């Protein structure tokens, strides 16, 4: 009579049991968060190496992921047409939060959210309320107002300029604030505006050179990756300025560009969006079940948008009088006693 293994020691049964039990054991060994790990996706329309808006978004969401021990996925170069598929895919894969990084993702996010998925959607850089969507309305108007004041105080020619990547609301808000701030200091100041591209440094450089040729001596740029072209133009112009001559200055935007390697000596300030802070607030709201749809104003008042001065230029370029004027304006803007719209 052949020897029979007891029922429990049958190799096939052991194998089946292992397949069932092993994942549970592994999940337990690696800790409970492995099962309950939050999943966040960020969708960008451009390259995450653009040195501006998209790169800052990627860096910010990774910082949030580290703090919350969340799994973060970043998808770049997604057109609004494809965004619906990408967002639906993330929703089907159980992501709790999907952030469309740019106003162009507002419509796709609304379409996917309307399909009754459990995933929460946020769109950054938009200013319109849509059902089921948290709209992060970054408003750089007030920091740009402060930059305008600084530009007017720095300008010797009474001509300053703004270069934007595209004429969209978030960019024109920067120009409006910049112009209003400059005119609050010098009502007769001339403020030029031009729009080039987000990713063509050569085009932005030639536009900046046209500004400089027309005696503009302070340039505020919001062109992301193409900003390197503007920095290069300013650096080149400043190399040609004779000793004792009036230099050309440039301001950064979206992220702190004061330490750019091209012309940090001539970059007195940047208007900065602290994306990590805004993303963290939304992620925490999702995690704690307190997520609400609607417009979330992210501005000078809650500290997400602000002006960062270049401390290396304190004294030499940015005088104590300028700093106190900017600080006073900041206080008045926060208190609501000063309104950019009023200018």
């Amino acid at each position, binding site marked *: 009579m052949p020897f029979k293994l007891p029922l429990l020691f049958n190799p096939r049964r052991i194998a089946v049991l292992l397949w069932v039990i092993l994942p549970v054991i592994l999940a337990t060994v690696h800790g409970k968060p492995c099962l309950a790990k939050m999943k966040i996706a960020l969708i960008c329309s451009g390259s995450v190496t653009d040195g501006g808006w998209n790169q800052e978004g990627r860096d910010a969401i990774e910082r949030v992921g580290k703090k919350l021990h969340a799994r973060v996925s970043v998808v770049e170069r997604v057109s609004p047409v494809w965004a619906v598929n990408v967002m639906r895919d993330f929703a089907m894969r159980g992501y709790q939060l999907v952030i469309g990084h740019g106003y162009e993702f507002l419509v796709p996010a609304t379409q996917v959210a309307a399909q009754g998925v459990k995933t929460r959607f946020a769109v950054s850089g938009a200013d319109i309320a849509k059902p089921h969507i948290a709209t992060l309305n970054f408003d750089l108007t007030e920091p740009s107002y402060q930059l305008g004041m600084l530009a007017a105080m720095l300008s010797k020619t009474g001509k300053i300029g703004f270069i934007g990547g595209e004429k969209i609301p978030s960019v024109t808000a920067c120009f409006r604030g910049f112009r209003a701030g400059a005119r609050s200091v010098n009502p007769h100041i001339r403020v030029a505006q031009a729009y080039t591209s987000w990713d063509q440094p050569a085009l932005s450089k030639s536009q900046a050179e046209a500004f400089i040729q027309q005696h*503009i001596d302070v340039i505020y740029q919001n062109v992301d990756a193409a900003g*390197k072209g503007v920095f290069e133009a300013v650096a080149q112009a400043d190399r*040609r300025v004779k000793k004792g001559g009036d230099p050309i200055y440039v301001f950064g935007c979206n992220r702190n560009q004061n330490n750019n390697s091209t012309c940090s000596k001539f970059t007195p300030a940047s208007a900065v969006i602290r994306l990590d802070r805004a993303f963290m607030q939304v992620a925490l709201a999702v995690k704690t079940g307190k997520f609400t749809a609607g417009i979330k104003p992210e501005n000078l008042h809650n500290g997400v948008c602000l002006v960062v001065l270049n401390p290396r230029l304190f004294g030499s370029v940015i005088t104590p009088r300028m700093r106190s004027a900017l600080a006073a304006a900041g206080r008045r803007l926060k208190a609501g006693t000063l309104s950019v719209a009023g200018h």
Partner: protein
Amino acid sequence: MAAGENIVTFLAQQMIAAAVPLVMAGIGELVAELAGVINIGIEGLMLTGCIAAYTAASCGYGSIGLCAGILGAMALAAMFATVAVSGRADQIVCGAAINILAVGASGTAWAVFQNWRQKHDMSVSLPHGAGFHKWPLPFLSRTPFFGPALFDQYTLCYVTILLGILVWWLLRYARLGLIIRSLGDFPEACQAAGIRVRAWRWGAVLFAGGCAGAAGAYLSIMRTHSFAADMTGGQGFVVLALVIFGRWNLFGLTAGCLLFGFINALQQVLQTARYTAHNRLLESLQHIPFQWFQMLPYAAALLALAVMAKNRPGPRALGRAWPPETPGE
């Protein structure tokens, strides 16, 4: 660029600065098309030149970057030639594939490069001295008006002028030029004369790749000292259009590129002056949307070239694979 520089000098300088990459890439594309190969992947080749030059120049030497830009684009051109010339595949489809490949590959290479540099605590910017600066020629660059425009430019500008003269002479007077033109007009005759059509076309495609790579390097390590994904911004397609609308003539191509550069500089000055100048006429331009200004160089270049030489035919065998398909195939 100095503040308040003479407007004529400024416009001439900007015109040449903008035209250099177009003419350089255009010379290569012209030779390839005269040899019967149309490579619409020139945009991708330029982009490859940009990223290859920038990453290689990060070692501290601009000349290494320039060589890498040329070689990188030539490698991609070799891929194109393998499929389109040796493999006799459709040249338009292959060119489109090269563009798509270059956009993805350059973006990925840039991300990998950035991550690697950051991991080793190194800046992604070019080290001091790695990028090319303008090289003003002594005495000549001080000539009033056009001196700074012509003789205070980047090295590649002078190289482009010399290359243009050389290619023009070769195409017009040398046996080499006759062979190249015959490859595009009557490859059967070349075959009968013992000229290896595919091998010569390979050479033309590689030359075009090298020129496009140099044009890309100009954008990244000379003009801007930076790289951005898609930084060529459609200039390769502009070159393609200018070669065709210039009716496969070096002068037509150069004139188109210069006109494009001039109108572009002019529209940028106008966009600025309408806000800064104390002039009612210019101030009245503030109501015109900026897109109208940006459209001007494209519209003017195409219009002028279309009017200038609309009846000159292109190479007869342009875009046709060699050897031609036989009925039994």
